């Protein structure tokens, strides 16, 4: 965190000053470790085993927060008799469908009742959409004593029973005593009087089982009662200033603003069907129709009427997976014509640069907007395969357009940070020359498109013609007014254009418009709320007048959980939101995240619908059952409970299960994307992990061109331990070459104690593991240059969010500079396959991969691409 979020880390330092214990778990000893009370070096890719060990510790030692767990989590819920755990099936859950190569989640449900997840993917399973009606759970499905062997608590207990401190040592390379020290510190600092928080970043997400890493932390935090309470939570440290914002008002292909699902072409064929498939009968998501209709009104204005489903048909409908890697593979296969790259440098920053460049070579056109001509913009004349003459620029037909971009200091707008807080930034200076803001670019592109279609009578052009696009512009360059966009996002009543104060004012009859329901209130009373900057010293400690947090300026989500079931604070010390019996409403230091006048004693009547189903002691109002999910009966493609699987490429066999890898992971079986052996590949005996440094920003577009930053980390380097350096003859400051089957890069060697070898395994399998650390900031352009680490990384992904596995893979290192041979996989693997037995990644019954995700099945290479 100190490495990549030094400004946010000031609050960690402040907590430390007040006596907080800082624990840092990382393969490397980083700037964060230097400040930590406890540093835990861990084998990259083994975090679920570590966190699962903590779950087991909490349960075995009865350190969980009993009242919280019983009342606020789904621990007492009884799960279907059909459910079988990974303990029963050697690493698979019940419901694995061999034909489809994916899970059927029927057996994960609560005693026969379907329940909807809080967001997206509600109908992605088994291909068929389900109506979400009837999701209220009756009382006979609970065991509040937590003794029933089929209740969630007992299932969780059994699932993690083998995740002992000894197992943690064996899998993660973390000494047992150190692990116990962490588990004890966490438990000692949780409960009614104290809370603990988790912070994570892409070190957890970029794995073929990344989503489940965070799920494991969620289980720990729910067991310890650390959600919805001050000082608790799980904080995703985002990689850029407003990545949170670009998830909320998304740049994601499968979401509409405010976490509304993107319509699916095959079955969301009308607004009625879309709402039926995507809203929940119980819990807060029953309000979804209001948000969808208001969004359509914001986008299509007068044209959107009740009679035409508010122009629902204008929305793009998904025909399949269009996530990043899938799109790039499609591109390489010639299925994509044009590509916008805005503020991103994928040939350096994303996985597998060579495959990205292959994709770009097949495009008709490419638009890059950035501060400088990046490696992505110059892929056609400056790339490893071009330097070696394998590809000639004159053979590339892609037309490249480069647009210089304005920096954040040169434009108005908001940043949304990890705590969902919007902060307005005002333009400080004019952007130089032709540099323009994204807002300017998108607005004028839209305006020109509308102009081109002006005279069209073709019905298919209506979505462009009817799009509301009346943003006022200012100044010489006709810069659109960012506040006008904020107002649209906030929402307004259609009749008078008055900004709404909250999403509770939105309606499903077309009388309100709102660009993103969760942001509703950010322009309350016509005031730019994110621009508020009242100093902390002049307001309460919750500081609700600094910026604005979604939803409803609420600083802690699910804060009903900060009070006990009767509505009283768990403790005076951790008092936050409570029930005021005299006034008959919830009150506290923050905006209560609950129905304001619903008493703690409220219980829904038989047959209740919508928000009426939320009990007075259901803090997790976005869940259909109002509870925090220890066990996820729905919403995940790779199991209801996090399970330790090895990365796609590992140095060892899975010590816990016969199933080596996440069975539901996405693979790309392509000749340019060779994988190493699942474990024990003699060519690639070391663990590789990638990361960022404080001195540079991601793919370097903002930093490698700036001398003051470039000089601080002027060359690509790798970090290795003195032991590995001795083993391989590497010299500090000299060159080293790192290779995988995908690519070969050279870099400087930094020999340091900060990346220690670990000891994993047990008995005669006990062995030393060396890890190689690779920052990934460099490319072939800018003031400081170097090979891009991501040339080494394959296409393999988490099945839930399609993120790549760049934090744990295998590779090799040799002293000296790279060979003059081919060094990226333009025409197939760089090295011959390793001989010997293939080590299976999957149990025999899990050999098939899902087809729909990327069009290519594992084990069945495309015709003519057999390697």
């Amino acid at each position: 965190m100190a490495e990549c979020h030094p400004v946010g880390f000031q609050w960690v330092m402040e907590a430390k000053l007040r006596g907080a214990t800082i624990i840092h778990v990382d393969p490397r000893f980083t700037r964060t470790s230097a400040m930590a009370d406890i540093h835990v070096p861990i084998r990259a890719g083994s975090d679920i085993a570590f966190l699962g060990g903590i779950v087991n510790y909490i349960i075995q030692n009865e350190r969980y927060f009993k009242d919280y767990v019983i009342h606020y989590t789904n621990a007492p819920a009884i799960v279907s008799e059909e459910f079988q755990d990974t303990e029963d099936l050697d690493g698979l859950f019940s419901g694995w469908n061999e034909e489809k190569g994916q899970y059927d989640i029927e057996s994960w449900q609560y005693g026969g009742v379907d329940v909807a997840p809080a967001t997206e993917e509600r109908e992605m399973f088994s291909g068929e959409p389900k109506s979400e009606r009837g999701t209220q759970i009756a009382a006979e499905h609970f065991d509040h004593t937590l003794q029933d062997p089929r209740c969630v608590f007992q299932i969780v207990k059994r699932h993690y029973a083998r995740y002992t401190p000894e197992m943690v040592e064996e899998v993660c390379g973390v000494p047992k005593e150190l692990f116990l020290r962490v588990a004890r510190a966490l438990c000692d600092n949780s409960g009614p009087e104290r809370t603990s928080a988790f912070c994570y970043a892409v070190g957890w997400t970029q794995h073929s089982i990344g989503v489940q890493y965070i799920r494991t932390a969620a289980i720990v935090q729910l067991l310890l009662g650390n959600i919805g309470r001050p000082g608790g939570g799980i904080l995703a440290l985002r990689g850029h200033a407003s990545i949170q914002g670009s998830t909320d008002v998304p740049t994601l292909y499968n979401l509409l603003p405010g976490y509304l699902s993107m319509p699916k072409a095959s079955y969301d064929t009308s607004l009625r069907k879309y709402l039926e498939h995507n809203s929940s009968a119980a819990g807060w998501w029953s309000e979804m129709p209001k948000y969808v209709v208001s969004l359509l009104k914001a986008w299509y204005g007068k044209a959107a009427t009740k009679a035409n489903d508010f122009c629902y048909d204008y929305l793009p409908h998904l025909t399949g997976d269009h996530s990043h890697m899938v799109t790039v593979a499609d591109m390489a296969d010639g299925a994509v014509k044009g590509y916008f790259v805005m503020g991103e440098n994928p040939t350096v920053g994303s996985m597998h640069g060579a495959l990205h460049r292959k994709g770009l070579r097949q495009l008709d056109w490419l638009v890059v907007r950035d501060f400088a001509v990046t490696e992505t913009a110059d892929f056609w004349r400056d790339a490893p395969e071009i330097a070696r003459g394998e590809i000639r620029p004159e053979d590339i037909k892609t037309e490249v357009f480069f647009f210089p971009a304005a920096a954040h200091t040169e434009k108005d707008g908001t940043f949304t940070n990890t705590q969902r807080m919007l902060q307005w930034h005002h333009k400080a200076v004019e952007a130089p020359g032709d540099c323009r803001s994204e807002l300017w670019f998108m607005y004028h592109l839209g305006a020109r498109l509308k102009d081109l279609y002006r005279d069209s009578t073709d019905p298919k052009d209506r979505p462009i013609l009817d799009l509301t696009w009346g943003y006022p512009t200012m100044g010489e360059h006709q810069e659109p007014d960012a506040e006008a966009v904020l107002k649209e996002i906030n929402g307004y009543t259609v009749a008078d254009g008055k900004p709404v104060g909250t999403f509770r004012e939105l309606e499903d009859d077309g009388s309100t418009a709102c660009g993103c329901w969760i942001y509703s209130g950010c322009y309350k009373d016509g005031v730019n709320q994110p621009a508020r900057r009242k100093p902390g010293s002049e307001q309460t400690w919750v500081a609700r007048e600094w910026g604005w947090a979604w939803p409803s300026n609420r600083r802690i989500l699910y804060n009903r959980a900060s009070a006990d079931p009767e509505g009283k604070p768990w403790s005076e010390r951790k008092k936050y939101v409570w029930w005021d019996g005299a006034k008959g409403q919830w009150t506290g230091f923050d905006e209560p995240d609950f129905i304001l006048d619903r008493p703690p004693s409220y219980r829904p009547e038989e047959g209740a619908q919508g928000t009426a189903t939320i009990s007075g002691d259901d803090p997790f109002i976005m869940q259909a059952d109002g509870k925090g999910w220890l066990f996820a009966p729905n919403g995940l493609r790779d199991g209801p409970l996090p399970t330790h699987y090895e990365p796609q490429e590992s140095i060892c066999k899975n010590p816990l299960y016969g199933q080596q890898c996440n069975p539901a992971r996405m693979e790309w079986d392509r000749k340019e994307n060779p994988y190493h052996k699942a474990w024990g590949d003699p060519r690639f005996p070391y663990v590789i992990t990638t990361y960022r440094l404080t001195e540079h920003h991601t793919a370097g577009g903002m930093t490698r061109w700036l001398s003051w930053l470039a000089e601080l980390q002027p060359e690509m380097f790798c970090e290795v331990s003195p032991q590995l350096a001795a083993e391989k003859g590497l010299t500090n400051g000299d060159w080293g070459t790192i290779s995988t089957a995908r690519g070969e890069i050279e870099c400087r060697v930094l020999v340091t104690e900060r990346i220690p070898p670990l000891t994993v395994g047990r008995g005669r399998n006990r062995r030393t593991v060396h890890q190689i650390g690779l920052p990934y900031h460099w490319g072939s352009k800018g003031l400081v240059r170097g090979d891009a680490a991501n040339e080494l990384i394959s296409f393999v992904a988490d099945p839930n969010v399609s993120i790549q596995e760049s934090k744990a893979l295998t590779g090799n290192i040799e002293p000296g500079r790279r060979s003059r041979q081919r060094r990226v996989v333009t025409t197939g693997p760089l090295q011959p396959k390793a001989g010997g037995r293939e080590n299976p990644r999957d149990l025999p019954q899990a050999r098939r991969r899902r087809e729909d995700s990327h069009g290519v099945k594992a084990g069945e290479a495309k015709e003519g691409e057999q390697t």
Partner: protein
Amino acid sequence: MNAKGFFTDTTVCIGCKACEVACKEWNQLPDDGMFFTGMSYDNTVDLGASTWRHVEFVERPVPLAGQETAQGNFSWLLMSDVCKHCQRAGCLENCPTGAIVRTEFDSVYVQPDVCNGCGYCIVGCPFGVIDRREGDGRAWKCTLCYDRLKDDMTPACAKACPTESIQFGDLDELKDRARTRVDQLHQRGMSEAYLYGVDADNQPGTEGLNAFFLLVDRPEVYNLPPDPVVPTKKVGQAWLSMAAAVLGMALAAAGAVVSSAGRRRQ
């Protein structure tokens, strides 16, 4: 005007180098060259004509008090170094042109329009802070952001520091704060913590630093001299020795004359 200075608390420095960058940006300093040193995360190496804040990265085979790690005997010390603005400033006292002056903030400032680049100041600094810039010839160092102080603004480095490792303010207040911090660390079991150069008693050779530090290991570990002495402090002593030498030589000469005269007499 009260004396101003820096208190740099190395125990909360996270090595982010925001101070280095903020300093270079505000003062529009050139880069110091792009080369990989292999010395931990330090690639700017030391203070000089174009690097007025510099972060040290010390990988140390010694554990840090209160820290647990599987690595055993290891810790990483981070420290942002800067011109000390000494009470007895060697550079200032060596400057023959009057280019280096003491300001109303009690800081030591090089006037670039007066400096003739003679370089006497460089040998006068016991910390190796000040240096001449190649191609420019003049001597440069931290100005304590004199231009910002004139406008009642905090120096760029302290302003940019996210963890308040670099604290700027009235020297007396900073000293109080620093002593309290040392006490606090001692109470928490970090008995190694001490102040470097906080006053004349602490560091007679400079008579105290207006930019002083809280350290947890010997000064040499941080590339700081253990007992810096400003050369001009030794002027008196030098004159005395010279006087003694002159006297000695005179006596010797006289003795020689006397003895040779005596010999001749024989």
